[in-house]
């Protein structure tokens, strides 16, 4: 059985189903009426964590052993008292090595938990960069949305911020350095692109089987890095558009990536009303459309940056994504064919899958 945790504008939906049969059903709903930005099941503790941004009471992280039961509010999810800005939102929670959990949010903040998500501590070194460098927000705020640990190296971590680019640490967050060489922000005048730091990364992933291989979706541009995120090469040629938000990788194949192109920043919908995922198996040299089973006309979907996830690998790779239309699509065969996992849900903000 596969479990999908869907963060939506109106609560958390827990779906359970069989990717082979293509059938999923709603098993639980939590935080009814509240915007749930992200939810994940911690592989270490098996606990479910959800980030909820109440429009009234602000952002919180909650955790539970049973999503249909009681939830407990985590401690420490705030900026230091007396700050000149407030925590706006938690975008993502990612498991690190050794039971550590990382959480990223707006305004460009990173938190760490060493007790399975019960309590969190702000990373002050990164916070210092945000203050000293005066990071600029993107359209979705100053969001730290991508956190990619290095498998087997708990002190190495990379993250991406919109719009403050890519950052790396080799000492568990004591110090940070940028990693943006080769990224060309087309939204800046040509003469201002070299050395620019206002870099709107949409999402970043690292290949588990070759950690120095990384991919990013940028605000125009798909990029690959072969040197652990120090320099980047454009690989978007062959896509109907190189604008999009989420990206997913096959853990078994470092040359693989899946993206969902949108028409552009002027019209953030699936091009020509055709819902299609694009797959590369040669590190971005070529792209193959994978849309069988999904609407190929009259479907103008918006897929947000955290609304695409995978579980499994190789030919058994399962892929799932949700749209702001409330539709959720899945594939149990690495994108070869697709099924509708859910429809008529509230706008989907995030999808995480586990089997």
């Amino acid at each position, binding site marked *: 059985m596969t479990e999908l945790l869907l963060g939506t504008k109106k609560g958390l939906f827990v779906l359970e189903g069989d990717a082979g049969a293509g059938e999923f059903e709603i098993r639980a709903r939590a935080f009814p009426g509240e915007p749930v930005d992200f939810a994940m099941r911690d592989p270490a503790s098996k606990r479910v964590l959800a980030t909820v941004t109440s429009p009234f009471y602000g952002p919180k992280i909650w955790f539970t052993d049973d999503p249909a039961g009681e939830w407990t509010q985590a401690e420490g999810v705030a900026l230091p008292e007396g700050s000149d800005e*407030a925590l706006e939102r938690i975008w993502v929670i990612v498991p690190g090595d050794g039971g550590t959990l990382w959480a990223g949010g707006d305004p460009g903040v990173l938190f760490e938990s060493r007790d399975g998500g019960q309590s969190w501590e702000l990373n002050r070194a990164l916070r210092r960069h945000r203050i000293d460098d005066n990071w600029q927000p993107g359209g979705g705020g100053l969001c730290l949305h991508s956190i990619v640990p290095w498998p087997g190296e708990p002190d190495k971590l990379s993250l991406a911020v919109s719009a403050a680019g890519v950052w790396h640490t080799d000492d568990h967050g004591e110090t940070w350095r940028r990693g943006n060489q080769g990224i060309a922000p087309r939204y800046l005048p040509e003469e201002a692109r070299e050395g620019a730091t206002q870099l709107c990364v949409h999402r970043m992933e690292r290949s588990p089987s070759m950690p120095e291989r990384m991919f990013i979706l940028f605000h125009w541009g798909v990029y690959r890095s072969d040197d652990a995120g120090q320099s980047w090469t454009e690989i978007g040629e062959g896509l109907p558009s190189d604008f999009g938000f989420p990206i997913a990788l096959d853990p078994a194949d470092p040359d693989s990536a899946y993206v969902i192109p949108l028409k552009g920043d002027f019209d953030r919908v699936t091009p020509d009303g055709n819902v299609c995922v694009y797959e590369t198996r040669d590190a971005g040299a070529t792209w193959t459309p994978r849309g069988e089973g999904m609407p190929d006309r009259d479907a103008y979907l918006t897929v947000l940056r955290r609304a695409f996830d995978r579980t499994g690998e190789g030919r058994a790779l399962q892929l799932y994504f949700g749209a702001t239309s409330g539709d959720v699509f899945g594939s149990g065969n690495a994108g070869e064919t697709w099924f509708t996992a859910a429809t008529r849900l509230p706008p989907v903000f995030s999808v995480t899958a586990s089997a």
Partner: protein
Amino acid sequence: MALVCLHGPLRNLAGGCATQEVSGADVKSVLRGLEDLHPSVSGWILDERGTIRRHINVFVNGERGGEETTVAVGDRVEVLPAITGGT
């Protein structure tokens, strides 16, 4: 002491009590006093800057107030979610 009236989840966080007697000379100090009495309330009404969250309204004796609104003994301080918060 002012009488703080709570609604919705704030009431649960304050131990289920609809009203609380809290001392303080202005709205902010009353709300900080409420947090001292019930630490679970911290971060729900005032943010890290000490500002009342954008979609929460605080009324003192029926009139909308801010952090610095003066509060006297016996005043009624009501904390309510604003109609602007939901979409």
